[in-house]
């Protein structure tokens, strides 16, 4: 993906020159990737949204102030900010909870999933069962079970079951593509 025709250095220069359109372009280009990085931290959606906002706010402040050491590696710059803020958020949340533990009038976000979350989970689970049921053999199901449930490494699975790496990659890729196809077709109201 090109950064909308601008290199990292080009975007940095335009932002430092005060071009607001360049700031919008910067956020647009890195929004999805930053969301994925923050999501990897396991933060709840509300916290993830806070970290997301702070990531771009801080990044723009630093860019405007000329604090980007290597403008060509703008991607690495924004990744580092997102990771560090996610880590800091977790630490702050843990310290806050520890300080106020036992105070009856304090309200903390419930870790229980919302009703919508439960519905989405149930739907995802149904799609996954469909994908698993469509696999041609129990061995293929066992491979996915070991990889996704037991978190076994690919090399161990291949060695134990006597399969090649290509077969393994093909199976995982095929299962994910099938899941995606069913998922997307549901969104378009079509049955597959």
């Amino acid at each position, binding site marked *: 993906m090109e950064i909308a025709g601008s290199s990292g250095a080009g975007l940095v220069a335009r932002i430092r020159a005060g071009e607001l359109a360049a700031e919008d372009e910067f956020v647009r280009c890195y929004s999805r*990737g930053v969301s994925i990085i923050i999501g990897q931290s396991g933060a709840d959606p509300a916290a993830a949204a806070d970290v997301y906002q702070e990531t771009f706010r801080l990044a723009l402040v630093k860019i405007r102030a000329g604090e980007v050491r290597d403008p060509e590696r703008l991607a690495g710059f924004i990744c580092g900010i997102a990771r560090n803020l996610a880590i800091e958020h977790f630490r702050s949340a843990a310290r806050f909870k520890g300080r106020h533990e036992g105070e009856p009038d304090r309200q903390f976000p419930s870790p229980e999933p919302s009703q919508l979350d439960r519905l989405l989970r149930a739907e995802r689970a149904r799609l996954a069962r469909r994908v698993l049921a469509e696999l041609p053999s129990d061995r293929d199901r*066992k491979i996915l079970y070991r990889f996704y449930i037991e978190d076994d490494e*690919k090399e161990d699975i291949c060695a134990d079951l006597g399969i090649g790496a290509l077969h393994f990659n093909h199976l995982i890729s095929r299962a994910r593509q099938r899941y995606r196809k069913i998922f997307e077709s549901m969104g378009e109201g079509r049955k597959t």
Partner: protein
Amino acid sequence: MDHLRIEERNLIDRYVRGSMPVAERAEFEEHFVECAACQEQIEFARSFRQAVRESVAERAGSGWRWAALAAAACLAVALAASTVFLLQRQSARSELANLRRPPVVFGLSLSRNAAEPQTIMLPSEPRWMVFVAEIDAARYSRYRAAVVNDTGEELWSQDSIQPNSPDSISVAIPSSRLRPGTYALTVSGAQADGASIVVAHFSLRLVASK
């Protein structure tokens, strides 16, 4: 970083599982933050992984929750000393061959476990063993569980376990991964930087079925 290398090294799945070294993770993130194709693959990989886990949990979920509630009720009137509640419930039909047998469920409590290891009988045939651990599960959104033998060797582990209530998590272990002996089941809270903090430690004495 090119896509051939990403495919060959299963970087998408390893990233979603959180099993990449720090440097490799940073390199991969710097790539995909500018790559729409990889972003899409990661999102679907994450969704599919979660869906597969949820499909398994849901199948035995009603049985496990019933068992956890029953165990909690029994605990209120149980006497001291190590006590293990074995609860069995028929699971729904499962697509995965080695899940067709009903799981066995055990309740783990720190207060009861403090005195001496809990004795757990291993099933004679492979099946799920579900440990419902009573812990303060509200501190972290994800947990890691591991079974460690007395030499410190890790026999089994699982990351990204989500709590099923503010005061318990369920840890499902295939019985084929366990052998008779004395072990520790440790539960750790997962931090954003990849490190984890041990929040509970249960001593288990696994014995073979007669």
